[in-house]
């Protein structure tokens, strides 16, 4: 499996994400936001957490218009896999690759803690290492994770089984407790929680490992 991790000014989970991909067996290349193309043969692009461009204007808005994001969008459009975590999820909604938007947390506070996350579907390369209904412990660390989409979009997401994860105890006001969603072809996942921060025994939890192992398992056999 070949993975690329995008690095923006202000990304701070890029190396953690690369470590998690590598631990699952991936060959990882870091790509800078000014790069105009992804390395040849990349199977999956990771858009990491952090505070790209200082969260100026809106979280992810400037990053979504950076040169590399044109290539990420083209990669997604031709059926490539993309995993956006936290700020990466915000970037994916700002590019329009995933529907909806992430608003300021309903309680206005930045929240950094481990939360219970319910796996809503095992039908994706990201979640097939879990069983639908599993509750896993994954850290969140965000100020703007309050998922919003109009009613029609929400119904589509739920009707098409595209809610990947939901919060067991909604920390941020997200509609329908949504923590992560899939694209219509199920190859793009955006999620606010950080599976890469629960992927090693040294992290204090390993519930995120199954996500990276499932991706690697699928993409190495393709």
């Amino acid at each position: 499996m070949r993975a690329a991790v995008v690095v923006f000014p202000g990304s701070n989970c890029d190396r953690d994400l690369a470590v998690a991909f590598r631990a699952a067996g991936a060959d990882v290349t870091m790509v800078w936001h000014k790069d105009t193309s992804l390395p040849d043969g990349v199977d999956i692009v990771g858009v990491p957490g952090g505070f790209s461009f200082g969260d100026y204007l809106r979280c992810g808005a400037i990053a979504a218009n950076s040169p590399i994001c044109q290539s990420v969008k083209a990669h997604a459009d031709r059926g490539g896999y993309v995993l956006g975590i936290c700020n990466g999820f915000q970037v994916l909604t700002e590019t329009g690759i995933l529907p909806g938007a992430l608003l300021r947390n309903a309680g206005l506070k930045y929240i950094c803690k481990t939360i219970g996350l319910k796996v809503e579907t095992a039908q994706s390369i990201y979640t097939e290492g879990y069983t639908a209904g599993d509750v896993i412990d994954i850290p969140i660390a965000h100020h703007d994770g309050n998922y919003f989409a109009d009613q029609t979009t929400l119904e589509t997401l739920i009707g098409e089984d595209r809610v990947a994860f939901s919060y067991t105890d909604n920390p941020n006001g997200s509609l329908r407790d949504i923590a992560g969603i899939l694209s219509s072809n199920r190859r793009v996942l955006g999620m606010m929680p950080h599976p890469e921060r629960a992927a090693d025994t040294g992290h204090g939890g390993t519930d995120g490992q199954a996500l990276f192992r499932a991706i690697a398992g699928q993409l190495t056999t393709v």
Partner: protein
Amino acid sequence: MKATVHVMLKTGVLDPQGEAVRHALGALGFDGVNGVRQGKVIELDLAEGTSEADVTAMCEKLLANTVIESYRVEMA
């Protein structure tokens, strides 16, 4: 040549910051505030010949996220 862009969260989108400001005003004894919505104002210093349509395109592409925000352009 200048343009002013007003960006607001759409009606129906929860505005937790506006709500916090409303609470704070109430705590200060200002009882007459039924609601607060907080947005942003963006001032653009434009080259001559830049049209309102150009500014609208800027809003659609970057300045506003039309999933959650509405915008209004004032050309001056």
